[in-house]
C-alpha cells in the first residue's frame, strides 16, 4: 500500500540520480548517492509497453523508484535493468504446435519452442488470450506463460490446431 513514507522514499531515490548495477550476488542493485539496496523489477505494462514503466521494489515490496522509460537511465544502468527485465519478463516463445488435445478438465498442448519440444496443460475453460499486438498468450496450470508471437505466421498444421483459439 503506498503511504507517505513510500512516496517520499521513492522521490528521494529518483532525485538523487538513480543508478543500477548487476552485482556478483546475482542481484540488481539500486544506487543513489550513498544509499544502495537490492531491488526486484516489476513491469507495469509487460505487454503494451515492455520498455517502459518498470517498478523497482525492495525486499519489503515497496517501490524504490519507477523507471518510466529505460532511455532515462545512463547506458550501464540501462543494460543492467535490461538484463534483469529479460529474466523477469521471460515467456516461452512457441514456434509451432504439434498437438492440442482436450482431456478431462484440461487441455494438453505439445509445442515447439526455439530450443526444443515442451508439453503443458491448461484448464479447459482457460482460453488463450489474444494480446493487443495480436500475439496469443497461453497460461498453463503451473502459471508458465507461452507466447505465439504471430499465429498467422505459423505453419498450416499449427494454425489448424490453434484454429479454435484464434479470431
Amino acid at each position, binding site marked *: 500500500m503506498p503511504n507517505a513514507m513510500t512516496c517520499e522514499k521513492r522521490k528521494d531515490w529518483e532525485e538523487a540520480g538513480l543508478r543500477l548495477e548487476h*552485482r*556478483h*550476488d*546475482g*542481484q540488481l542493485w539500486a544506487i543513489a548517492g550513498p544509499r544502495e539496496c*537490492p531491488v*526486484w523489477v516489476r*513491469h507495469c505494462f*509487460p505487454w503494451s509497453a515492455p520498455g517502459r514503466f518498470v517498478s523497482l521494489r525492495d525486499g519489503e515490496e515497496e517501490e524504490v523508484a519507477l523507471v518510466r522509460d529505460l532511455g532515462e537511465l545512463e547506458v550501464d544502468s540501462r543494460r543492467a535493468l535490461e538484463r534483469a527485465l*529479460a*529474466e*523477469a*519478463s*521471460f*515467456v*516461452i516463445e512457441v514456434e509451432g504446435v504439434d498437438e492440442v488435445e*482436450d*482431456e*478431462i*478438465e*484440461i487441455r*494438453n498442448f505439445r509445442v515447439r*519452442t*526455439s*530450443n*526444443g*519440444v*515442451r*508439453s*503443458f*496443460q491448461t*484448464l479447459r*475453460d482457460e*482460453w488463450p488470450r489474444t494480446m493487443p499486438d495480436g500475439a496469443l498468450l497461453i497460461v*498453463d*496450470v*503451473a*502459471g*508458465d*506463460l507461452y507466447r505465439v508471437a504471430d499465429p498467422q505466421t505459423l505453419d498450416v498444421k499449427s494454425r489448424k490446431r490453434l*484454429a*479454435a*483459439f484464434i*479470431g
Partner: protein
Amino acid sequence: MTAATFDRTRKSQGESTSTDRAILERYTDQPAGLPRELRTSIERRFHGRPVQLYALADLDVSLRLTEVWLALGPQEVAVASLQGSVPEIRTFPRSAVGAVRLDPGLTCNTLTLLAAPGEPALAQLRFTHRQRRSMENIQFALEQALEGRGVVEADPDAVYAEAVAGPIREAQALVAGNDVAVLWRLLGYLRPYRGAVTFGMASAAALTALQLLPPYLTGYLIDEVIRPVQAGAVSVAQVKGLAWWIVGTIAASHVLRQGCAWARLRWMAILGEHVARDLRTELYEHLQRLSLAFYSRKKTGSLITRVTSDTDRLWEFLALGVVDVSLAVITLLGLSVVLLTLDWRLGLVMTLPIPVLCVWVYFHGQRMNLLFLRAWRKWSNLTDVVADTIPGMKVVKAFHQEGREKARFGQRNSGATDEFNRIHEVWTSFWPALMLAVRAMIVLVWVFAVPRVLGDEAFGSALSSGTFVAFVLYMTMFIPPIEIIGQIARIMNRATSSAHRIFEVLDTEPQVVDEDAAVRLEPVKGEVEFEDVVFGYDGVRQVIKGISFRVAPGEMIGLVGPSGGGKTTVTNLIARFYDPVGGRVRIDGVDLRRIDQGHFREQVGMVLQDPYLFHGTVLENICYGLPDVDFDRAVDAARAANAHDFICELSHGYETLVGERGHTLSGGERQRVSIARAILHDPRILVLDEATSSVDTETEYKIQEALDRLIAGRTVFAIAHRLSTLRRADRLFVVEDGKLKEQGTHAELLAIPGGTYRRLYGMQRQLTSEEGLHPEENSCRTQ
C-alpha cells in the same frame, strides 16, 4: 527442535507417488525423478550420505530449456548439470548457505543461494513455474535449517513428483485413468438392475431383428404371390391365404416392434434414472464425509456440476447411449449379412462403402468439435460481459458507460452468432451430402440390379423383383446406424469424462478420519490443550509452528495478531477440520484424533464473520441440526441473540424465507440468527471468528450483548480485531507467524516492552485518536 513435514498424504503415499510419476511421464517432457546414475554420483560426492530433496532447474542463464539438478543432502548441496556427455557436479557444504532468495518472474524464477546477503552467489538457478514448488521445498528446508529447525525426512522422489505433478493433478479429475476401466466400473452400477438390463437389451435386440423382417416378407410376397399371379402361374385363390398371412405377419411385426421400442425406452430410461440416483446419492453422501481440505482444493461450481450435470450425462449414456451404440453396430452387421445373403454382388455394392461413410461421419464430428470449441469460447466471452456488468450495473451507470457496454456486448454477441452460423453452415451441408452419398449407393444398386431384374445376363444372373424390392427397403435402414456410429467417440468421451469426475470424488478419502475405537467424551468439559502443534495446509509451508497452550474449561481466550498469522487455523484445529501434522491437540486430556468426530462436533459451536444461512425459513435456520426443538426454545434462543425483535418485524415472522444464503437479511441480522443457532446448539466449546466485524456500531452492540449471553459458562476462543469483543477474555493469545508470541491479560501484555500486542494496541490508539474518537471509547481495542 520441531520438525516440519513434506509428507502430505502419509496414508497413501505410495499410491499418490505412482500417480504423480505417471502424470510426469504422461504430461511433461521432464524426468519423473533424479536420474539414478546422477543420484549415485551425487551421493558419492556427499560421501555416501543420501539425497534428501532435489529439484530441476529447467532454464539456463540464457533462458534456454536445460536440465540442471539441485540436490540437498544432510551436509552438502549439489548442483549437477546434464548438458554434456559427462555430468558436471559442483558441491558445497550446507553450512555455507547463509541466505536463500527466490525471485519470481512472469515465467522464469530464480533461486539464489548466498553465503550472506550481498556476498557472491554460491549458486543461482533459473526455472519455470512448473519447478517452483519443488524449488520452494528446498528453499523451505534451507531456511528452516537457518532457523535451527529441521524437516521430517520424506521420500525425495515422492516430494519431487508431488510438487511438479501437483498443479496438473489439481486441475484434472483423474489424470492417469484408463477409459476402458472407467467404463467397466460405470457399467458395474447396472449390476443391481440385472433383470431390467436384460429385459431392456432383449427388447432392443428384438426391435432390431423385427425391423429386418418386413423387407424380407415384402420381397417374398412379390416373388411368391404377386408375380406368379400376374404371370398366371397360380390362381388368386391358391395364394390368397399366403398373401394375407404375409401381410398379417408384417403388421404383427410392426406392432411387436413398437412394443419392443416402448419396452426398451421405458426400461432403459427408468434404469438410467435409478443408476443416476444411486450415483448422486453415493456422491453426495461421500461429499458429506470429506474433510474441509478437499473443499478448499475444489471449486464449488465444479462439485455442483458433478452432482447434477455429470450424473445426468451418465443417465443419457446408460439409458440411450449403451443401447444405441451396441444396436447400431449389430444393425449394420445384421444388414450386411442379410444383404450379402440375399445377393452377394449387390450386397458388396452396398456394404463396401459403409466403412468409408463411417470415417466421413467421424471426420465431420471432429470438425464439428473444433467449431463447437470456437463457439464455446465466443459464448464464454459473451457470458463474461453479462456476468461482469449485471452485478456491477451501479458502477456502469455511475460512470455513464451504458453505451460502451452495449457496444461490447453487441460485438461479442455478433462474434458468437457468427460462430454458431458457421456450425449451421457445416452441418447443413454435411447431412444432405451424406444422404446424397447413400442415395448414390442406392442408385448404384439400381444400376446393377435393374438389368438383372430385366434378365440381361451380361450383368450377372437374373434377380427376382422381390429380392430387388427387399434390397431397396433394406438400403434405407443403413442411415441411422451410420449416424450413431459417427457419434460413438463423442458419446464415449462425454460419458468417461463425467464418470472420471464422479469417481475422482468417490475415490477421495477424507483426511480426518475416526479411529476404529473412537472415544465419546460424555460430557465434554471443555479443556483444550495444544502440545507443540505443527500444521500446514499444503504439507510444506507451516502455518502453525509449534504452538503449546492449555485452556481450562469455561475460560475465554482472545486470539489477536496480524492477519495471516494463524489465528483461524488454531480454531480450525480445535474444531478438528484438520489434523495437525506434528504435536497433539487434546480435549479434556484425550488426543482429539481419538475422539469420535460427530459427537465432538456437536459440542463445538462457531459464529463466523460471514454467517452462512441455508435457503429456508428463519426458524429452520435457528433450529438447524435440531429439528425437534419446540417453539419455546427457538424463541428463547432468538431473544437471547437479540434476534427476536427483527424476526417479528418480518412479514412471516419465524416462517419467513431467508433466501439463498440468507440474502434477504442484513449482515447483522444473519449474524444474530447464527448466534441464536449457536445458543440453541449449546456447545461446550465456542469459536467466535470476527463475529462483529463489518457491522455498524448499533448492530455491533446488539450482537455483542447476544454474544455475552452466549459465551457464559463455555470455553471460548474469540478472534477479533476489536477488543470490545474480547473485554471479557480471561487471557489474550498473540498469534503471529504461526507462533504463540505472547499470552496473558490485557494489562500483562501491555507491560511487555516492544511486545507485539503493545505495538498493535498503540497503533490502534493512534488511529482512533486521528479519527477524532475519544481514546477511552477505544481504549480496549487491540489493533
